[in-house]
Every structure is written in C-alpha cells, then in structure tokens.
C-alpha cells in the first residue's frame, strides 16, 4: 500500500498539495513482548527484556513522559493506531508522518542483540505501521540500526533499502567515537548505496555514561535535555566534515533531531575562521559552511524561541533556517509541538512553507501531492 502510493507519479489533477511533514513521530509496539515475537531464533528464546534499558534511567523527573492525552487505555505510549492517526492526521493537518519507532527503550551492551532488536523493529514496522495500520499511506518508515554494530547495521540497511516505505536510516546520537570515525563507514556507505538520508535522534542506551560531558556529569534533566543532543550533533558534524565522509558520499544527507539548530552557525564560524590552518591534517574540498548547506538538516522540535519575535526571526535568518530546518512534533512525547504553533509567527510565509514541508519533500524524496482521503474528510479539510 505504502509502496504503491509513494512510488506513484505526482501529477494527478485531483490531488492535494503536501503542506505539513512531521519528521519526528514515535510509534511503539503495544509492549516489548510484541517485539520479541518478531525476533529471530535464537534471540526470541533468550532472556532479553531485563537487558534492554529504559532510555533516561538516571533522570527520572520526566522519565518516558508523554503528552497527557496520548496514553492508550492499554499498551505503551504511541502504540494505538486509532489514537495516533487521530492525533496526527485528523486533529492536525499533517500530511506525512516520518516514523521513528522504538523510542522508549535504548540499546544494550551487546551489539549483536542490538542488531537483532533493530531487525525485529524493522520487520514489525513493515508489518504494522507501514502496511496494516497505514490505510491512507500517510506513514513513512525509518530503518532502525545500531551504530555500535556497523556491519550488522549495513546488513539491515541492505535488507530494507529497496522497500519504498523506508525512506531513511535512523541512528541514535551516542557512539564511542564521533561519527566520522572510519569504524562507522559501513553504515554511511550502505545509506549512500541506497540513496537514503540518515536521521540522528537523541536516545539513551546502556553503553552511554548518561549525561556525561567533556567536564563531568550533568545534574539536572533540564541541563541534560538542553545540552546533550546539540553537543553530540556539533561533534558529529565536525567529525563528518573533517573525516571526509561527505567527500566520499557527496549525496548523503543527515537530519539532526531534537537538537535545535541555532548552535550550528557559531560553531561552523569557529571552524571556518582558521580553516586553512587547522585543516592541514586532512583533505577537504569545501568550506565548513558549504558542507552544512549541502549535507545537514535540523528538525524543529524543541524549537528555540524568545519573547521578542523580531530577535528570533533574525537569528533564524542568520542560521539559514529557511533552507535547513524541517518541522517535527516529537509526538507523542510531553514536549510535543503542534504544526500550527511550532514556528515563530515572525517568519515569512515562504520560509514557513519550506520548514513545514518543502525541505522534507526534498530530503526524503517524497511526492509533492497526495490524494484526499478519509482523514481529510474526518478533519473537515476535504
């Protein structure tokens, strides 16, 4: 179903224009046990649940907190298809939801188990949200992989890379070295081979010293949630640039989720200021800013905001927000941003259109129109 719609030429006269793409929607199995049914032997017969950590075990204040109205009567947050499609497509005018499944738990200390789990998540997503639950073809999948098993990750990307429902590779933010390190090359090579972009999402896991920084551990969730993702992304960005990943894969693009974006420009300015001097240790073909414009995109939620709309509009302009930003809601988590309220009002309409859909249409190579469907009618929009 997904296959047919997304592959379809986008020039039918009665179709409607795609105006909102949500690049960060978390769906889950009803429970972890549901996932075990999708695991291959010998994994499904081994003790697993105890080995899979919840994502923020150290900071309990907001642990796995969801939007208050998004908890199903039974099953985990984000696991009820009827509720998710209502919140996504009927209550809001969202056209496509990019699914980043399995957000409630993190990866383990065993890379082989991680890949087995990622593989189960992909099979489960294919058989549920990308088919059975995808009645109107509004859901778009991500290939889940574990960065700590690059060879297994590449195998998983090769398995699903030709499936039109999977439009990106999804990794979590943490690795033992920054992501330009050659140890990760098999992942980026596999993504490039299938012409798939890669999204990087903030996620806890058993191998991470949670909240640890270059100068010791953070104490509060507010510090952790505001610093860890942007700091990791700045590190990966510098690493991709300096290690030649982007020169080897000139079409490969990355999307940083939940990390904001205002930070990238001053760090890239810092890298650029002495680039001729500092880049002598490696080969590089472009300026740091050009690498960013060509290869990196940022999701909006939780968007940086301020009380003075003109100030924030200027900062957005300085950071090329109109070209680099894509809307994301982080549904169904507690800090959900609805599409109608996510962007500063002071942005001009063209910039808003690109952030809400235009940039994501290009990034995921999606059709610019779709047929009007049941959700449009139920939402009073068709």
């Amino acid at each position, binding site marked *: 179903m997904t296959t047919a719609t997304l592959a379809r030429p986008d020039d039918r006269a009665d179709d409607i224009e795609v105006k909102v793409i949500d690049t960060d929607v978390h769906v889950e199995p009803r429970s972890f046990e549901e996932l075990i049914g999708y695991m291959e032997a010998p994994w499904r017969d081994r003790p697993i649940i105890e080995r899979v950590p919840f994502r923020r075990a150290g900071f309990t204040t907001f642990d796995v907190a969801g939007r208050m109205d998004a908890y199903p009567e039974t099953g985990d947050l984000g696991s009820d298809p009827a509720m998710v499609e209502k919140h996504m497509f009927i209550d809001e005018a969202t056209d496509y939801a990019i699914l980043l499944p399995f957000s409630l738990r993190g990866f383990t200390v065993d890379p082989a188990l991680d890949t087995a789990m990622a593989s189960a998540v992909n099979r489960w997503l294919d058989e549920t949200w990308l088919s059975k639950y995808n009645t109107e073809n509004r859901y778009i999948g991500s290939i889940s992989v574990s960065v700590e098993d690059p060879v297994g990750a590449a195998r998983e990307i090769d398995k699903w890379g030709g499936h039109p429902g999977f439009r990106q590779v999804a990794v979590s933010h943490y690795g033992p070295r*920054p992501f330009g*390190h050659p140890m990760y090359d098999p992942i980026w090579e596999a993504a490039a081979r299938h012409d798939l972009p890669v999204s990087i999402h903030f996620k806890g896991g058993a191998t991470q010293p949670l909240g640890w*920084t270059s*100068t010791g551990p953070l*104490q509060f969730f507010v510090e952790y949630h505001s*610093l860890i993702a*942007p700091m990791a992304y700045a590190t990966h960005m510098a690493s991709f640039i300096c290690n030649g990943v982007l020169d080897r894969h000139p079409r490969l693009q990355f999307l940083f989720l939940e990390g904001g974006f205002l*930070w990238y420009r001053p760090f890239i300015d810092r890298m650029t200021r002495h680039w001729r001097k*500092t880049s002598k240790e490696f080969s590089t073909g472009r300026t740091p800013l050009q690498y960013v414009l060509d290869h990196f995109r940022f999701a909006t939620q939780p968007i940086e905001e301020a009380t003075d709309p003109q100030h924030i509009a200027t900062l957005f302009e300085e950071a090329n927000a109109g070209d680099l930003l894509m809307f994301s809601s982080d549904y169904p988590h507690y800090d959900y941003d609805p599409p109608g309220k996510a962007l500063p009002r002071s942005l001009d309409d063209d910039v808003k259109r690109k952030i809400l859909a235009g940039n994501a249409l290009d990034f995921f190579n999606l059709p610019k129109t779709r047929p009007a469907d049941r959700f449009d009618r139920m939402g009073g929009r068709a």
Partner: protein
Amino acid sequence: MIIDCAVHPVMESNRFNQFVGGPWNLRQLPTLFGEKYGAPFSQLSVPAADASSPAAVAAALRAAGIDRAILAPTTFGYWPNPHQAIAVAKAANTMLVEDWLDSPEADARFLGSIRVAMNDIDAALEEIDRLADDPRFVQIVVPARAMATYGDQRFFPIWRAAAERGLAVFIHDDLSAVVEPPPTQVGFPSFYAELHTLRPMSGIVHMTSLICSGVFERLPDLRVVLGDVSIHEARAFAIRTFKDWQSDRVEVPWMEREPTDYFEKHFRFVCQPEDEISPHSRRAAGTLGGDNASLVVFGSRHPYWDGVDPQDVFTAWSEKDRARCLADNAAAFYPRLGALVTAQAGA
C-alpha cells in the same frame, strides 16, 4: 583605554619546576597545553622565549595599545594527585607575583589570577586567602575541563570565597593533561580542527550548570567570565536552556528568574576570533538575553595563535559599543577592576 581580560603567559618550564619544588616537580612540564592533540602549526604567535618573558609580553601589549592585562597562565589541566595539584597552583601564583606582577618592565600593566587546585577545596580556599589581599589579583582561574560540572555543591565554597572577596571567576580551557574525560561526550575526535571547534563546549556546560543549580540565587554577587566561548555560541545554548526550562522548571524550583536573566547578569564572554566572521557579530544591540555589546569583554589571548587584535574587535559596531567591549564592560563587571581603573584615570 583597553583592558585585556585574557593573557596567558607561558611559564618557563625549568623555572616553574623550581617554584613547584620537590617532591612534586616530578616530570618535565609540557611547554604548551593540549598534548593529546598536536596542532599542525605552532600554537604560539611569538617565539617561545617571548611567550615566557614578562618584558616581551609587556612590550607586545604596549604596542597593541593595551593599558591593563589580566594574566592567567595555564597550568596544564587537571593534576590527579591533589598534593601535586596544590603545589602546581601555588607555584603558578607565586611565580606570577614574583616574575610578572612585580616585574619592573610591566609598568603596572599586569593584573593577576589566582590559580586553585580543584581537587582539594580546603587548599583552594587557603590559596585564595593567601593572595586575595593583593589588589592586583582580580579573579580566580579554574580549568574548563573538570571532573564535575561547576554547579556541583562540592565547588560552592570556592565560588563563595570568590564572591566574598570581590574576585571574578575565570573559566578557561587549558586543554588537558591526560586524565580528564574525553573532550566530547561521544569520545575523542580525530583531529585538532575538531577539538579547536568544539572547545567552547566545556564552558557552556559550566555556564548551564551554574545557572540551573541555583548558585547565583545563593551568591548574587558572583561574576563569571568565560574565556573560550563566543557570545553567539553561549547565546545559542542559553536560548535552548530557556526553552527546556519552561517545561522542566519544576525540577529546579530555586531558579526564580529566566535562564537568560542569569546569563545577562552573571556572565561575560571574552571575544573570540570567530566573532570576526560571524553574521551575529554585526549587531551590537537588539539581541536576545541582553545586547551583545554589554556582554563581551576584550581578550587578546596573547601569546597564543588564535588571538584577537583590538583593531579587529566587532568592527561593525559604533565606537561607543566597541569601547564597551574593549574596556567599559570589564571595568564594570570585575568587582576589583573599577577601582583600579578609576585610580589610574585620576592619577
């Protein structure tokens, strides 16, 4: 009038070891910091002998039109043996007084920073007491790379002593010796270029930590200067923290004001070389969390390679705003500096 808030004389190794004294002067000190990442070029902008010479440093500052310079020699990061850490801090301070502050060639141009060992709080307090009566010490200096974030209660007595004594706190990245955690929270980058780019992170972590842990509610007079973080980098993160705080504030109920308010009142940022090319730098006013022109102080970072010349500071700004960065902000922010500058103007 130009006040230079970041000058980093390089302590000549043999002499420094004499000050450290036995048995802690066990190894040949590195002449420069950052030994895990050798830069692919010289890290000094002057010959090594000039970087260690009070006369040469004073001459260079004089030539650049700098009237007052706050010296913060680096001491090679975190020393795991606390006894050695105490000896190194004490040696740096004593050598700073004898060779630099008292230097006849310095013509009273130099001001000092008290270096303290962060792994022995009692010793740090003693060191502050030992030197704080000398009005030429205007700040304490602490490394940006630490074993814990500076909002942690273990450090509070140091901040309290600084606030009570009218000393600012200067957080400066000495890069590392060998024992600190990796320079990023996802491990070691491969190249110096990455390390240099990401260097502001540790200072940003401490800024966020001091704000969120309520240190400024308890010490309303505490002033912190970040040596390696541009105003633009700091602001990007302060805005993010402001956003998260709106939903997470229940967890930090002692924060009575918005994070950006603490940012504006308690922090100043030494100008960075990237300010020269940042589009953000064109605007002196009308920026979030306070005007840029009120939050930056000049620091040449002499004699290091990525220094800033006073002529290149925020060239798009009005003369009045540039003067704020070059002198007025520092004179108003460092509790001890105002009196010194006024005395000089009256003399």
